[in-house]
């Protein structure tokens, strides 16, 4: 089974603090993603990465950055946390397949990291 592990299930931080959310996958997937999950808004893509040291902005990248130094690890960084970043953060991974009809597009998700910024 694919395993995507997010290091922190629950975090409470103060406004202005730097926050690191770690994600590790054990299936040698090329593609990794960070989503934010909010009631009524669904999942919104923050950043994604198709390769080591590669990153691309998603739909809501403001206030976030990412790091991918190793294939299995994708970190989300909040440089200066704000209260509107209180949310559930989901990491996901999948095999690559640019333009590949065989890529089913299935994402494998972590359990989520619930961040509260006071």
């Amino acid at each position: 089974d694919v395993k995507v592990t997010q290091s922190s299930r629950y975090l409470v931080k103060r406004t202005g603090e730097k926050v690191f959310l770690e994600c590790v996958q054990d299936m040698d997937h090329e593609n990794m993603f960070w989503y934010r999950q909010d009631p009524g808004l669904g999942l919104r893509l923050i950043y994604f990465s198709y390769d080591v040291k590669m990153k691309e902005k998603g739909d809501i990248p403001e206030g976030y950055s990412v790091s991918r130094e190793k294939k299995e690890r994708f970190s989300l960084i909040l440089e200066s946390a704000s209260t509107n970043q209180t949310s559930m953060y989901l990491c996901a991974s999948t095999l690559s397949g640019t333009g590949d009809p065989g890529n089913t597009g299935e994402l494998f998700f972590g359990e989520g990291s619930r961040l509260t910024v006071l």
Partner: protein
Amino acid sequence: AQRVTQPEKLLSVFKGAPVELKCNYSYSGSPELFWYVQYSRQRLQLLLRHISRESIKGFTADLNKGETSFHLKKPFAQEEDSAMYYCALCPLYNQGGKLIFGQGTELSVKP
């Protein structure tokens, strides 16, 4: 613009009743469509994909290109179906896995 819309935030039915969770999409090409489910205290997981034309846990979904819809249906709901359901779109020939999700529908099946 590419968009997925789930018009119902909450759907409440009684056990044994039919269920239909609505999903409409906006995309100019031929997308791949998925339903993901999140049970209480569990991670989000794939329920079914349109390309497989399969029935999972009694659920089916038919892609209607004319109406740009991909509604999820089950003839007889069970209490264990209570969960959060997300419809998602993957544009063909886009880089793998970059899904666009709808807002989600919470399904509550009452005894």
